[in-house]
């Protein structure tokens, strides 16, 4: 197949009226790749963190996701039990296999059936964490890995996400910087899912409807993990 590659590259260079990129050009392009630079950033997301949280919440609601703010992660199991009850959903949960979710006080919710692992066809509701969130458009960023199977984001009809206040950023660019800081430069998880509201379609007469193939409901538990002096009450 390398013949095909050479054929295409030769055709590109013929059209560009040059041979391979010069050493000089290469250095310049390598430099551009090595130091990714943000372009124009909308004002909207350049806010103090507390206001980013408000924007995140407002954008999520606009997208027809639901949001509950919690002062402490210990409140998560109760909040989930309440949510499932209110929405008339079965008290069953498929949990992303991660420590911070595992160690939550599930014992206080004896009626809630909690199982870990990837999503199965029969699962109605999943609970996952997030890697970051982008207030600009109310977008959740999920980075796949052993603690974050991708199927949990798409297969169940209801997706509940524990989002920590410290994970909320203003822009996509800030979220990429966080990812690079954690994984290393130009390393990506197998999948990064940017999720902006529940699944939707407009394919029938342009009527927007939720729950086409992915989750019909997206419920975000926004947990305040900021130090006490940064909280505003």
């Amino acid at each position: 197949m390398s013949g095909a590659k050479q054929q295409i590259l030769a055709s590109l260079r013929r059209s560009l009226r040059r041979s391979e990129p010069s050493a000089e050009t290469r250095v310049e392009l390598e430099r551009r790749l090595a130091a990714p630079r943000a372009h124009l950033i909308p004002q909207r997301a350049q806010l103090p963190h507390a206001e980013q949280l408000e924007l995140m919440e407002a954008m999520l609601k606009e997208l027809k996701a639901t949001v509950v703010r919690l002062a402490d992660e210990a409140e998560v199991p109760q909040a989930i039990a309440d949510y499932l009850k209110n929405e008339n959903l079965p008290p069953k949960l498929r949990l992303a296999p991660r420590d911070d979710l595992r160690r939550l006080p599930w014992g206080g919710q004896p009626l809630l059936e909690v199982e870990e692992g990837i999503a199965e066809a029969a699962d109605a509701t999943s609970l996952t964490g997030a890697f970051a969130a982008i207030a600009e458009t109310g977008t959740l960023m999920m980075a796949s890995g052993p603690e974050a199977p991708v199927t949990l984001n798409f297969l169940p009809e209801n997706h509940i996400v524990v989002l920590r206040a410290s994970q909320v950023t203003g822009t996509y660019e800030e979220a990429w910087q966080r990812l690079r800081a954690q994984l290393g430069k130009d390393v990506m998880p197998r999948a990064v899912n940017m999720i902006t509201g529940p699944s939707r379609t407009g394919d029938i007469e342009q009527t927007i409807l939720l729950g086409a193939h992915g989750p019909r409901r997206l419920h975000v538990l926004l947990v305040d993990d900021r130090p006490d002096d940064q909280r505003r009450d």
Partner: protein
Amino acid sequence: MESTSHAFKDNARAALANQTLQKAMKHVKTGFIDKRAKARARLPEFDDLRDVARDIKNHTLANLDFYLERYEEKVIATGGQVHWAPTGEDAVKTVLDICRRVDARVVTKGKSMISEEIALNQAMEAAGLDVVETDLGEYIIQLRKEPPSHIIAPAVHLTKEQVEADFRHHHRELPSERSLSQPEQLVAEARQMLRRRFLEADVGITGANFLVAETGTSIIVTNEGNGDLTQTLPRVHIVVASLEKVVPNLEDVSTILRVLARSATGQEFSSYTTFSTGPRRPEDLDGPEEYHVILLDNGRSNMLGGEFQDMLRCIRCGACMNHCPVYHAVGGHAYGWVYPGPMGAVLTPNLIGIDEAGHLPNASTFCGRCEAVCPMRIPLPKMMRHWREREFERHLSPPSVRAGLAVWAFFARRPRLYHFVTGLQARLLGRLGRAAGRFDALPFARGWTRHRDFPAPEGRTFQQLWAQRQGGRQNGKRR
């Protein structure tokens, strides 16, 4: 797919007479336009972002060979495979080879215009594969054995009554007395029918909105989540993408993403923007075991460096067709091939030849709305004009057009005669039409007056009015 672009005029005539189509197209004329305008108004930086997006893509195209090689290196480094395909047949063969090797039976697909371009479904079906389109719109048109009529809303030419009839015809296993009159019920039924197919698929095929050279990543932008189920559940994920989808890094793509959804559906951001890099990692619990990218050229490398290079900036948002009065009138199928509307009028002759698709760049009033809304600032009317010039040079335009141009050129080369004749014409038509203000029939203009009235001129030509206006202005200055 087989082109009927040469029959554009017949296609358009049939489309104009098709009442069901005209009813469905009403939604396009208003919905998309309002939503985009609102999204633009909400983001003050929107038009500046379009400039930046254009510049990013221009930079990439000028160095496309470099970025493609870098992209390939990174895909391989993350355990994926890259297949270069000079032609559509090469791409199809690669897909079939992979399916055969992994002994695939069921193949799910996310919406991909490239796969329409290379007629992938037909080839896979001929090879005995069970191919399932999973985007709702694509699923509907697959049931109807029709091509898409819009690049982001493939079933936009259909009414919900037509979809209901199709579902009743094809979903025979479901109770016949079920209610299906509401769009919600149709969506729920498609969800139920496709769920099983997602789970049994051996291979999932998606297109790509972007490829990122920095990381070897392919990106799909969707709303339904079907693309993600398509590429996550099967053992093998195949990405079919054309060369020009590559961008340098994640910052570059983030900028372009800011203009994509707003231009397309008027959303701030699509529901799912998914960045895929290689196959499942050893520690992962889900995801495909194999990850293949097919890089398709199919004529694009020839567009580089020439008068159609700007077209390679296109991000397939559909804004040009959403705002096109010709597309509104005739819908996407009349264009006769994969890409309709203004972007199709420029791209199609590049890919299948001006002999076949010569009508398309002529099917424009040059109103300029397409260029005005294009997030990548592609000069679509200018490029349609390039095609018209080439068509004329190659003597492909019909005799009536050539004769008309010859008559016009005769007068245009004789300015005094031109002014005299047009002045006479304007006076005459102005006097004749004064009472009604319009004509419902005119000799030599029946193509126009058959469908609408011809407004009567006010008695003077454009040049006379212009001269008067310029004179008035100079007087104003002097005062």
